């Protein structure tokens, strides 16, 4: 059984310099109440791992605006000019990772794998400084696993033991990030009694979830 956590208590766990994975794709399936609480608390020099930074004023974009992000590992910042400007000015160090590579790196970090061997990125700036390994005569790029201190994820339903499911395109990175952080905090649209989510409907087992955010007022 989990204890419901208030957003400010969740944010209080996240110290300066923490590495934080955040689910969502252009703000869809992001944990918006957790993001707002993090903006209020404003820990310094965060490393954020996320697919994108949405837009200014939306989802992870709010963390960019708040100036609390030092390093960003992401696949896309094209719709957030503020992130681009801070990258160009040097305020934020941005590591761009192809989207499929990014999600596999997180999965590898959460699954005890030593890395990801992929053809994506070969012959592009993505390969710079990375090891290329030939397997049966074919070249693959070795991409390293990613883990974080915290994963802030959004779900559709959570039950009292932390089992989660997701809705439509709000799955995205959430179930994968749940594997790859020391502390996983889940913000769900609704919280339901144990058994409401049947075993075959659970997409993230509660054993992976450290805390469930209290229900919205």
């Amino acid at each position, binding site marked *: 059984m989990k204890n419901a956590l208030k957003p400010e208590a969740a944010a209080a766990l996240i110290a300066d310099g923490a590495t934080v994975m955040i689910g969502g*794709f*252009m*703000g*869809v*399936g992001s944990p918006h109440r957790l993001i707002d609480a993090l903006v209020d608390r404003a820990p310094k020099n965060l490393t954020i791992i996320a*697919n*994108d930074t949405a837009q200014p004023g939306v989802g992870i974009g709010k963390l960019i605006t708040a100036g609390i992000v030092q390093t960003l590992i*992401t*696949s*896309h*910042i*094209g*719709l957030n000019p503020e992130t*681009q400007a801070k*990258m*160009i000015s040097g305020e934020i160090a941005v590591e*761009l990772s*192809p*989207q*499929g*590579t990014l*999600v*596999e790196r997180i*999965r590898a970090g959460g699954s005890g794998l030593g890395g990801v061997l*992929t*053809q*994506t*990125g*070969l*012959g*592009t*700036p*993505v390969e710079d400084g990375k090891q290329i390994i030939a397997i049966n005569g074919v070249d693959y790029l070795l991409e390293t696993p990613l883990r974080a201190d915290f994963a802030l994820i959004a779900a*559709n339903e959570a039950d009292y033991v932390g089992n989660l499911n*997701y*809705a*439509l*395109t*709000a*799955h*995205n*990175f*959430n*179930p*994968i990030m749940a594997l790859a952080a020391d502390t996983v905090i889940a913000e769900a649209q609704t919280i339901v009694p144990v058994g409401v989510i049947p075993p075959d409907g659970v*997409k993230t087992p509660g054993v992976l979830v450290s805390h469930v955010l209290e229900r919205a007022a």
Partner: protein
Amino acid sequence: MTITLELPASKSSFNPKDIIAARVAEEVRSGMLVNLGIGLPSRVAGFLAGVEDVFFQAENGVIGLGARPPEGMEDPFLTDAGGGFVSAVPGAASIDSAISFALIRGGHLDMTVLGGLEVDSDGRLANWTVPGKMVPGMGGAMDLVAGARRVVVAMTHTAKGKPKIKETCSLPLTALRRVDLIVTEMAVIEPSDAGLILREVGPGQTVETVLAATDASLLIDEEPPEMSLRLLPIGIAKESPAP
């Protein structure tokens, strides 16, 4: 050189991008799983007719992407890769990003249609960054080009009058993989071991106008036919005057 099609007022939606989309739509076969990039490629869905059992995938996590829902019925948890509201067709499936890219990278995607900034004479695409100007990140583009069974580039033939098909790309490549087809409003070009083959010319175009707008050698077997545009309402393509 800027391409402008002077279309009848009542058909004003038939701009070069619609010609491209209609021609790309001819490439879509029944039973395919197809990913359409945002922007121009997403128009392709509007030109399919008589093609059954096609599933559109959006890399953010839906197989069976459908049209924009009726006003007021949009679901904030159902969007395309550009963040726009979509619906889902009967038989749709929700997937997470890991499965989404397992499909893309594992060769399960029959076709992807992507926009392009440049394509080189080896058929290699550059479409994700303009150093110093545009830093969008590659999103899923590198995965799509590296992994899809068939990569179709849908782009205007030139940008601000300058050819986008070039001997060598000036922009960073998206992948080493040779794309399978390039469709512009002026031409259909198939990259091959031997080079870029001019397969069709656009409405009102000739081999000469295409060559003049291209900065790479094109191989020409026979006189290339005019682009098949049966998916554009009949007559419209013919009415489109040359630039």
